[in-house]
């Protein structure tokens, strides 16, 4: 069950303008850097991107915003990005804001064959406008639905040729649920190993969810908010 593709170019074959694409990561942590660069190269546009954040001006999804390749962002938080703000305020960019837990659960539901579920998040707020609400055990909930992405693109730490993935630290974030949600899921990894090299007890994303895998050429792994304490 070899899922390996030769390179990022081959991995991104079939990505087209107008598609809905999920991209893993939280802030700049655990984002598929190589595939984002390739999406810039491909010059595809009118994209709907589902990703918790929208990158910064000169990194992550910011690259796609610079090229006005994104038509709509579906995110929970989109600060830290001047170009994003400009396009949003000018109306060039459509933005749908979703509570972070609802976003995560909707991604999971997509992969898990759950068409809809109830969550308390957003009840009584504008997030619930136009949505069905309902009481269970005296508390109010909002009905939320699965997504329908064409592709999901995730970044893992290690992966094997069968598509099994392990993430590192908080770079895991949205990647596992999104990996399960793509009609086609592309995984880029820092280190690609042979089957059997990863402990079968310790796989975060089983290869069944992954259609294409490759080792990224280079990872900058930029830090958004470097905070340190002084030794002393």
């Amino acid at each position: 069950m070899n899922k390996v593709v030769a390179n990022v170019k081959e991995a991104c074959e079939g990505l087209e303008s107008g598609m809905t694409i999920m991209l893993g990561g939280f802030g700049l942590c655990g984002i598929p850097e190589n595939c984002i660069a390739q999406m810039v190269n491909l010059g595809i546009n009118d994209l709907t991107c589902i990703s918790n954040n929208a990158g910064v001006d000169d990194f992550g999804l910011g690259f796609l915003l610079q090229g006005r390749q994104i038509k709509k962002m579906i995110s929970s938080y989109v600060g830290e990005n001047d170009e994003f703000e400009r396009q949003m305020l000018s109306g060039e960019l459509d933005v749908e804001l979703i509570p972070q837990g609802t976003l995560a659960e909707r991604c999971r539901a997509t992969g898990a064959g759950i068409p809809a579920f109830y969550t308390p998040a957003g009840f009584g707020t504008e997030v619930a406008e136009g949505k069905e609400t309902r009481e269970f055990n005296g508390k109010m909930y909002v009905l939320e639905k699965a997504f329908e992405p064409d592709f999901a693109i995730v970044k893992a730490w290690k992966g094997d040729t069968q598509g099994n993935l392990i993430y590192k630290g908080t770079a895991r974030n949205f990647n596992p649920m999104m990996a399960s949600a793509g009609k086609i899921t592309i995984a880029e990894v820092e280190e690609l190993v042979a089957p059997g090299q990863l402990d079968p007890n310790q796989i975060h994303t089983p290869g069944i969810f992954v259609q294409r895998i490759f080792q990224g050429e280079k990872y900058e792994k930029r830090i958004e908010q470097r905070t340190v304490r002084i030794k002393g």
Partner: protein
Amino acid sequence: MALDKKGIAKRIAQELRDGWYVNLGIGIPTLIANYIPQGIEVEFQSENGILGMGPFPYDGEEDADLINAGKQTITALPGAVYFDSALSFAMIRGQHVQLTVLGAMEVSENGDIANWKIPGRMVKGMGGAMDLVASAENIIVAMMHTNKKGESKLLPNCTLPLTGVSCIKKVVTNLAVLDVLPEGGFKLIERAPGVSVDEIIAATSGKLLIEGEIPEMVIEE
């Protein structure tokens, strides 16, 4: 004298109980981690996917794969766990986190909170705030009592778009500690050192309940 941000954090830290898992929002709430009372153990959950957050790393030891919900580089304590965003919000919605502390622009006397959007201004998004306030049994708002124009942030009704309804139980400001009563209204519990009840009355536009003598907060320097 009214409290500064550190003072608000110190006062809220007194609400921590041994064995609690706690989620701290960005801003004043983050400071609370510095003032955990002696003899109690709490563990911090950051909704991007870590339990057992430690202090910031030493210079040169930052790891791009290890950040908190404010996107700051952090460290992990022994016994820490990393997990995905779905499990993280399972913890939050499932009420496994005992206390959430977050900032607010407005709180209403029936416990509504507004803290994510100002019409006409760039909206950055609610992040995890709507999940947190809709789920936690125990939510404390940490904020200044009034806004930059001097207007009360404790209101009869919120004027800004809501983050959650009837969810806030306690508010700690630079002037006071107040409980939000189930039947509505802010019940004054404590005053900041040197702050008079009249000052709090003047700064509160929502329904304020004052019963008997209101003690001063005890905040260690």
